[in-house]
Each structure stands twice: as structure tokens, then as C-alpha cells.
């Protein structure tokens, strides 16, 4: 079974460079359980709430990822600059984005641990862009990613972009998470 959707589509949410994990989910919220339903939904509410106001939803800023009284975001795809997810190792970061409804991030580059957490936990698909998209995509644009072809279409502007291939991690993403991957490889018992 393939856990990765062939097409991921939705509205874009654009942020800048070096958006660290404290901006993705501020440390004060890390006290909530990731399993208890009444608690885990707070991660959706506070996802990307640590981004300073002028960087929230480029180019204009001032557009929160999740509305103050909501638990889910209207945006499905986060578009970012370099070193997305730098800082702490908290898996709460990709978890929070996923809890808000985000299915993919398209960044110019990632910090290693965030990238790994996104893949191993199967929270979202971290694509690497081949060029800087932060100035070419606007928050609210309608995007579609073909995960097999590795292409990103901006349906609002009609532009298409090539993404880097997922490489080694595609197998883990297709399996769903690192446990399923390890089971399929006969590495841990089922």
C-alpha cells in the first residue's frame, strides 16, 4: 500500500528563511499531549504561531496560519525559504503542521532533524524546491503537487516548477512511517 498521495493540493502559505521550530510551535505549548484528542488539537491551533506578524503569510504578512479560534488551517501546503525547521529536535513541529491540516512543505532547504522527523513520523511530505519560490508564490495561491513526477503547479498563476526528487526517503513516506518501513524490510516483527 502506498501512503503517499499521488496529488497533494490546496492553498499555499508562504514564509521566509530560517523559520525555526520555536516559530513552528512555540515551546510553551509543548506541554500538551500528542495523543489525548482534547489536547492534541491545540497543536493545530498554534502551528506557525511563533512567526513574527510581518512574516505570517508572505508577501503581505499579518495572516495567521490558523485563525485564532480555529484548530485547523485553511492552507494545505507551506512554501518556505532556506533552513526550514532549524533549531530544536521537537517532533511536535511537523506534528503541529500536520494537525493543522498541512500535507506538504516545499522549502529551498531544511534543517536535518525536522526533515527526518517529517519523514520518519509520516507527518507530511518535505519537498525541496529547485529554486527560490518564496517570492514567486503568494499566500492563498492554489497549488498542486504531483508526488510521483515531482512537479508543483501554481493554478492561480499557471506557473509550473520542478522539485528535487525525494530520493531515499520516498520509500519511508510510501510505507507511511519508519516503523512500517522497518517491518516491510523485515527489520522488526509485525
Amino acid at each position, binding site marked *: 500500500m502506498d501512503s503517499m498521495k499521488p496529488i497533494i493540493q490546496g492553498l499555499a502559505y508562504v514564509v521566509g528563511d*530560517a523559520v*525555526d521550530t*520555536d*516559530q513552528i510551535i*512555540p*515551546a*510553551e505549548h*509543548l*506541554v*500538551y*499531549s*500528542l*495523543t489525548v484528542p482534547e*489536547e492534541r488539537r491545540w497543536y493545530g491551533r498554534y502551528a506557525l504561531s*511563533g*512567526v*513574527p506578524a510581518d512574516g505570517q503569510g508572505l508577501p503581505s504578512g499579518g495572516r495567521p496560519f490558523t485563525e485564532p479560534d480555529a484548530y485547523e488551517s485553511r492552507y494545505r501546503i507551506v512554501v518556505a525559504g*532556506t*533552513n526550514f525547521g*532549524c*533549531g*530544536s*529536535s*521537537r*517532533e*511536535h513541529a*511537523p506534528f503541529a503542521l500536520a494537525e493543522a491540516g498541512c500535507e506538504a512543505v516545499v522549502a529551498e*532547504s*531544511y*534543517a*536535518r*532533524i525536522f526533515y*527526518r*522527523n517529517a519523514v*520518519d*513520523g509520516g507527518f507530511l511530505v518535505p519537498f525541496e524546491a529547485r529554486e527560490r519560490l518564496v517570492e514567486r508564490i503568494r499566500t492563498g495561491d492554489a497549488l498542486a503537487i504531483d508526488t510521483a513526477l515531482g512537479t508543483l503547479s501554481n493554478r492561480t498563476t499557471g506557473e509550473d516548477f520542478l522539485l528535487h526528487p525525494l530520493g*531515499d526517503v520516498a520509500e519511508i513516506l510510501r510505507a507511511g*512511517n*519508519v*516503523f512500517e518501513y*522497518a517491518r516491510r524490510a523485515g*527489520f*522488526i516483527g509485525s
Partner: protein
Amino acid sequence: MTITEKIIARHAGRERVAPGENVWIDVDVLMTHDVCGPPTIDIFKREFGEDARVWDPDKVVLLPDHYIFTKNHHANRNVRLLREFAEAQGLPHFYDVGTPRYKGVCHVALAEEGFNRPGSVLIGTDSHTCTSGAFGLFSTGVGNTDAALILGTGKIWVKVPETMRFVFEGSLPPYLMAKDLILAVIGDIGCDGATYRAMEFDGEAVYDLSMEERMTLTNMAIEAGGKNGVIAADAKTVEYVQARTDAPFEVVFSDEAARYHSVRHYDVATMEPVVAKPHRPDNRAAVSAVAGTRLDRAYVGSCTGGKLEDFEAAARIVQGQEVVIDTFIVPATTEIAAALHTTTVGGETLYDIFERAGCKMGRSSCAACLGGPPDTFGRTHGSEVVISTTNRNFPGRMGSKQASVYLASPLTVAASACTGVITDPRAVLV
């Protein structure tokens, strides 16, 4: 092969590995804390069963340290969950809050308790787990999912990193500390300058450093995106480790013919005190270039700058003076907190020096290094301008998104605390 490649090869049961290969390796120590421990335990139970046993109780270390002295009931609940798991699994290495065993900041505690053993693989659910590499071992931070897989199997997959080598020559002037060296490196290569790579520190100036100071170097490898930081073990390392554990270990060195991604040389005699300006650890400036910047508070603490020598350095400057801005002193561990009462500078204990100078004395934990619940000691709540010995200054890191944080050495922070503006320690060191 480099140290990092050799350790990974041995733990993969292989003769050799090359950068870029993915291999499964055996883990010698898994560390987790109160923030990432409970979700790791949840995933472990989901994947391996409610009654599953951890792969090796002797290799699991639980160090609650992040949100300890708070009334937040979720935070307190998380410490309770660790306690229940430790009890159910019979884990011997649990350093519970409110008991004499309580330690404080995990990365410093791992060293003090003898878990940092040369040649080993140490994985932690915390990005600054790279700190342990100061002992000539491979250590890196992972998320809850990878940690849960280790709890069940003792294994993790790693991509073998290329190694960047940083060689520090010469002898360190008294106004510089390891913090200045690592901030200079991060300023040079940027917050993503070592992404996916190992950072190996070498050179006589590194081996002249104490173990605590070496830990400051490896601690901040993650601030350049590094997978791990590493310093080959020497006689000092072996002495430190043998004083704290009887466990066997094997010292590993890089081969003469090891291949590096790059090599950078620094002459420490020509370097100067630096800060990282808001809001990035790579936003480096010479202290002399930002001297006079007005400050609201100073903070000495964390796994980076809350070790005994950090307080000794700060005390040398603060002694006989009064701080003119709110100054927070947070010893990383209870061992260090106790040592503040027994270690003296100029005949006075460090504790007395700070207290007389008007500093606010905190209890051992991560405290305001990462903001935390609103009642956290030293946390920012407004647009404070802070100078801190911690490791990160991204927006909101110490609590408030509006605050501005300068990262600096304990010497620079102490000098600035006494004047209320950023101050070059050379101006006050006698």
C-alpha cells in the same frame, strides 16, 4: 575514516562506511526528557504494544529538565508520565524531580553521570544531544518516532555524514571562551553551513580547553545545522570519564588519511569576543562593534553557558560589583548548584559573589533558555533586550516574540550585566 565514520562503522558491524550511505546502527545510550519522553513512550506503546519492554533498561536515561519548577499541570503531568514509565519498566537511570537524584539540564547531566563514553553512540530526543560529542563519541538529536524505534529495538538508521574539520591553533587569551570560538564558526558558515555534516574540532587550543569548555563547542554544532559535533578523546577526557563510570569504552581517532568535506583553521590569539545579534545564532558581530547597546537583562545558564566554569568566569568579573540590570543565574545541574557554594574566586564563594551583586538565583533546569510556561524563571514577557549565555536567539526563543536576545560568552554577559550596555570583557578584566 574520520572519528564519526569509524564509530558509525563499528556500530553497524561494518569494516568501513562512506559518507552518504544509509546504515542501521546499534545505540549505546538513549536519553529523553520531560518534553519528548511522554510522546516517545506513547509511540513506543502504539507500535510495540502496551506491555512491550524496552530493549535494554540499562541503556535508557530519563532526565526531566525542561519544565520543572512550574505550576503548569500539563508539564507536571508529563514528569509523572516519565515516573510511571520508569517504574513500570524498571529503569535504573531515572533522575526524578523532587528527589536527591534530580540533576537538571540533560546534556550536562549525561557528562556528570558518566554516560558520555568515548567511541559510543548516544542518541537523545533533544537537538543539543550533539554536546556529548565532546567526549569523542557519536551523538545526535532525534524526534519521538526515532526514539520510540530505539526503545523497541536499540537501533536507528543514519546517513553517514561528511565531516567538516575546524582546527584552532595557538593559546586562548583570557578574555576569550569556547563560546566566542563557536559563535565565530557559526558566523562564518551560517546556520545551515554544516547541514547533514559532522563538525570535528581539533587543534591545540581545543585540547587546552577543559571538558566543560569543549562541551560548549560541540553543544552549538546544531546551530550550524550539524548532525554531530566531535572532539577526539585525550587524557583529560579519559580522566573525566573514569572518575564517573566503570563502564568500558574505546577511544577512537580520525585516520591521518581521513577525507574531510573541508578544513578551516583559526588562530585563537587573533580572535576577539563576539556576540550573535538578534534573531539568529549566525548573526555574528564583534563585541567591540556593538558595545554600548542598551540592555534590560542578563542571563547565565543552560547546557551551553550554565556550567561551573561559566559561573567562575562570570564571577571573576562580577566580584565586588553590583549588576545594574536584572541578572539571572541558573546552574545547569544540581551538582553545579552545589559547587557554587564551595567554589571560590578571591576567597568568596561564587554563590555569595552573585548574591551580593544583586543577581537573581535560580534552580537547576532549562528555565528561560527556551521560554517555557509563563511562570518560568527568567522568561521574557515583553520587548526586553537580553544578553545571554544560551545557544539560540530565534524570535520567541526565551518566551516573548518581541524580545531581542544577544548570545555571548559568560565573560561578556557578566561585563554587560555590570554596566547595563553590551560591554567588552577586555574593558573590565584585570
